[in-house]
Structure formats: structure tokens, C-alpha cells
């Protein structure tokens, strides 16, 4: 707006000063030319908006803008000419001047077009840039949140604080057992914290960590926790994503042991063919005390991790039986 006023004033000044026309004529002619162009410039938004620099080839870009600018300048000069000739029909000196000025007005028109179009491009570019910044920061928070929640899910606070309480108790009863448990817990936590997403590890290492975990829970729950393992030796060298079994074990302990007043079993069964490692984790449970809300975040995390890792969603089978709950999970080996 301000820019247009300055241009208008300049135009008037030039006319008065160099061409010796009356003040009224000068103002009117400058107003008409400039207001018309200002209105037209709104229209220039469309060719700019629909002709993206990055998405169009140069030739395409050039023809589009040539066509648009010719049209805009044509309309501008013609409309101004029509209005001015009808306004000043009897002022011959001015009409002569107007006729002779058409070529350079066309030139100025193109110049204005280029200026305005580049302004619009700058504006669009700036907007896109701002949007991009916002999107990027949103993405970053998302990634952070998921990292944080996975960290939180790796270390279950009930498990941690109850284990610390057991240690606190053992320090008075049996310092040796307390020390064993501290070392076990430290190894377990170290393994959980050092793990990087998407990296594969051997079943053997994963199983070692599960054993540490079960040893700690065994100290807490004593006779209530009973683990049965059926693992074929060659399967130990197979690969799977690190810490993928941990949430399943925690679920088995949570629904099988935490909710049981008597001895309760957890089974870990591993079989393997050349292409695939198959692991079954099964726990006893009492259906009278646990309702359908038993699946929880742990399992859904494992499902989504398997999906991301192998790009398949048929690798987990959940089997809810009368008095036991079973998760069967397949790890393809030839990747």
C-alpha cells in the first residue's frame, strides 16, 4: 500500500515537472495507472501460486509467466488508455503524450509484473519455510516421545522399586544374596539401556537377559514363579530384534505371577527351521480374576516393532486358552 502511494507520488511528480501538464491531470493519470495495476497485481497471485519454481521446468515456467504477464500488461495499458482518453477527450496535447508513452508504459508494466511476482515468490517461500520448521519440530517431539516411552516401558517402575525393596530386605538377612541381586539387576538394566532400536541380536544373548530378569523375579516371588524352558540348542544362534521378548516376559509374569496366590508356570519354547525361529511364551492365568484388559501396552509395542522391523504383520499369533495365555512369535532369518 505504502509502496503504491510512493510510486503514485513519483509518477505525478515526473509528469508535472518534466511534461508541464496541469496538476489535476497528473494526479488523475497517475492514480488511474497505479490503482489499476494494484488491482491487477492481486490477480498475479494466481499464476505465481500455480507455477511452482521447483515443480516446473524452466521453459514451462517462462511461458506461463510470459503469457500471464502479457495478459496483465495488455489489460492494464488498454484499460488505462480507454479511461484516460474518455476523461481527457478534448486535451489534445495530453492525448499525444499518452499515445507516445504507450511503449514505455508497456515496459514499465513488465517491470512491475516481475517485481510483484518475485515478491509473491518470496512470500510463498517464506511461508513454506516456516511450515517446514513447525513440521520438523513436531516430528522431533514425536520421536523423542516415543524414545522416552520405550525407555519407560523397558524399565517398569513396579519391578524396579519392588526389586530395590527386596534388596533392602536382603541386606539385613543375607548380604551375599543382596549383592548377587544388585549385580543381576545392574546387568539387566545395562542390557536394557544399551540396546539400540532395530538392531538384531542373537537369541542366546536375549535369553541370557531374560534369565537375569527371571532370577530377580524368582527372588521376589519364590515358589510362586516356576519357569519351564524347552529350547533346542541350534536356535540359540538365530537372530531377533533386541529386547523384543522382554515385554512379553514381563506380561507373562504380570498376568501369570503377580495375580496368582499359588505356584504358576511360565513356558518358553523355541524351535527353528533354516528360515525361521519360532518362540512361544505361555503363562497360566486365572480367567476369573483377569478380564479382557490383559493385553496392555507391552504387547502392542511388540506388535508394532515387529511390523516396522520385518514389514509384515503375520509374525505374531496370540492364543487365549481356557487357563493359559500364549504368544507365538516368528523371526524370519533370511533378510
Amino acid at each position, binding site marked *: 500500500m505504502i509502496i503504491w502511494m510512493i510510486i503514485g507520488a513519483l509518477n505525478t511528480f515526473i509528469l508535472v515537472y518534466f511534461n508541464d501538464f496541469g496538476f489535476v491531470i497528473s494526479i488523475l493519470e497517475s492514480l488511474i495507472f497505479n490503482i489499476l495495476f494494484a488491482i491487477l497485481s492481486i490477480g498475479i497471485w494466481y499464476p505465481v501460486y500455480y507455477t511452482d519454481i521447483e515443480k516446473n521446468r524452466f521453459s514451462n515456467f517462462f511461458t506461463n509467466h510470459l503469457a500471464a504477464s502479457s495478459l496483465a500488461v495488455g489489460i492494464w495499458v488498454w484499460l488505462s488508455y480507454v479511461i484516460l482518453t474518455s476523461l481527457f477527450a478534448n486535451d489534445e496535447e495530453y492525448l499525444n503524450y499518452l499515445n507516445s508513452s504507450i511503449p514505455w508504459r508497456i515496459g514499465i508494466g513488465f517491470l512491475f509484473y516481475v517485481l510483484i511476482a518475485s515478491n509473491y515468490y518470496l512470500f510463498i517461500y517464506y511461508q513454506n519455510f516456516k511450515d517446514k520448521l513447525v513440521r520438523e519440530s513436531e516430528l522431533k517431539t514425536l520421536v523423542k516421545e516415543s524414545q522416552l516411552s520405550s525407555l519407560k516401558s523397558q524399565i517398569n*517402575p*513396579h519391578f524396579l*522399586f*519392588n526389586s*530395590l*525393596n*527386596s*534388596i*533392602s*530386605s*536382603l541386606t*539385613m*538377612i543375607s548380604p551375599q544374596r543382596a549383592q548377587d541381586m544388585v549385580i543381576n539387576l545392574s546387568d539387566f538394566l545395562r542390557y536394557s539401556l544399551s540396546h539400540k532400536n532395530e538392531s538384531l541380536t542373537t537369541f542366546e544373548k536375549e535369553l541370557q537377559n531374560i534369565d537375569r530378569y527371571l532370577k530377580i523375579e524368582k*527372588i*521376589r*516371588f*519364590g515358589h510362586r514363579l516356576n519357569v519351564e524352558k524347552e529350547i533346542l540348542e541350534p536356535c540359540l544362534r538365530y537372530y531377533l530384534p533386541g529386547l523384543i521378548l522382554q515385554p512379553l516376559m514381563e506380561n507373562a509374569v504380570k498376568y501369570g505371577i*503377580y*495375580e*496368582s*496366590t499359588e505356584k504358576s508356570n511360565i513356558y518358553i519354547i523355541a524351535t527353528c527351521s533354516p528360515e525361521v525361529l519360532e518362540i512361544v511364551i505361555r503363562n497360566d492365568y*486365572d*480367567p*476369573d*480374576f*483377569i*478380564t*479382557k*484388559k490383559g493385553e496392555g501396552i507391552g504387547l502392542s509395542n511388540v506388535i508394532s516393532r515387529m511390523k516396522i522391523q520385518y514389514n509384515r504383520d503375520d509374525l505374531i499369533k496370540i492364543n487365549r486358552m481356557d487357563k493359559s495365555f500364549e504368544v507365538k512369535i516368528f523371526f524370519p532369518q533370511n533378510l
Partner: protein
Amino acid sequence: MEKVKVVIIEDEELGRELIKNYLKEEENVEILAECENGFEGIKAIQDLKPDLVFLDIQMPKLNGFEMLEILDEKPEIIFTTAYNQYAIQAFELNAVDYLLKPFSKERLLDALKKAISRIKINQPRTDKINKLIQQPLDEIIERIVVKSNTKIKVIPVDKIRYLEAQDDYVMIYTFEGRHLKQATMKYFEEHLDPKEFMRVHRSYIIRLDQVVQLEPYGKDSYVAKLKDGPTVKISKSGFKNLKEKLNF
């Protein structure tokens, strides 16, 4: 001074050992029993009438809160738990203290001191706990604990067909039988999953998938026929809500 009679209810052996150890040198404390779960806990409290109970919250099948709910006479309670999500509930229950595991000996003795001073005043325990326990959780319940004579029963919400108000009690009709519980209809209306249950009348809450048929019954009132026979009354607004929900 008479000894303070204590019961420890905690499902982990080492947890019980810890409390016992901390209390070992307290001469005015007598540990009457140690219980592994809520069922044993109820029996011990009813039989031995302790002054003070150390109560773990997370325990199998019957948690600490559920256990308190069905006790008529309640001793002083010191909760012990690993996680602070229950702190507000515990204080609403007028508990003496709330110990976060692992806790120090000083912390436990401090709680004990508070408990002893309360016991000395010896105010008769009101039934305040029963009222308050009705709205501890602002969430959907999964099971309901009831008491019939001396037996304790835990009913999974999945097994409920409908509920009927009976003065200060609610009769819970399950697929196998019925149980009386001291509670309000409002409590169940707020804590049963609204996707599965609906209050259709001042005196009735029904499981939606049990409805077979809706019939008018006199002026401005209706009845719902449930699977296998029983019918329940439905108010005018209940009828409207039910029709919307079931797309009848």
C-alpha cells in the same frame, strides 16, 4: 502400656521380612500374623482383631483396597507400595501413612509412632472408609468384591447381567447367581464401562448385550426382556437412551 497388635499383609516374602526386621526392637509391638494375600489378610483381621495393619496394595486376586472394602471393622492402616499412583486414594481412606518402597527404618518407625498415637486416642473407627472407598478410582472397574456370610467372592465385571437397587444395597445378578453388595447405583453407573452397561431406571443397570426385546408397560414406562427370561423396568428417558444405543 498394652502392646500394639500388628498384622503384616504383603505378597512378597522379602517385603514381610523387611517390616519384621524393622520392628524387631520395638518392645511395645506384637506381630500377630503375616499374610501372603488379601484372603488370608481378611481372615487374620477378622480373627485376631489387630490394632494396626501394614498393607501392601498390589497383591494377587484381591488388592489392598478391595480387601479393606469388605471389612466391617477396620484397624489402623499403613499402606506400603512401590509406586505412588495410589497415594491420593490411600489418604482418602484416612490411612495413618503411606510408605513408598523401599523405605527406611526411620520412616517406618515414624509411621508407627503416628499409628500408636491414633490408637491411644482410641476413637471408635467410623464407617467412613466404606463411604469413601466407593469413589476412589475415577476409572472403569474390572471386578467387584462381595462377601456372603464368611465367604469372599470376586466377580469379574464380564459376568454381570444386570444390577438392581435394594435400599442401601445393590443386588448383582451374574450368569451364575446373585450377590448383595453395600454400594450405590451411582457408584456402579460411574464405574462400569458405559460401552457395555447402561442405567435404564432408578433401580436398574443392565448389560446392553443382554437385551432381547423392549416393550411398553403401562403409561410412560417400559420393560426390557433379557436373555433367558428376566424382565427389568425401564424409565421413559432410559427407554430413549436405550433405543438410541441399540438402534432398535
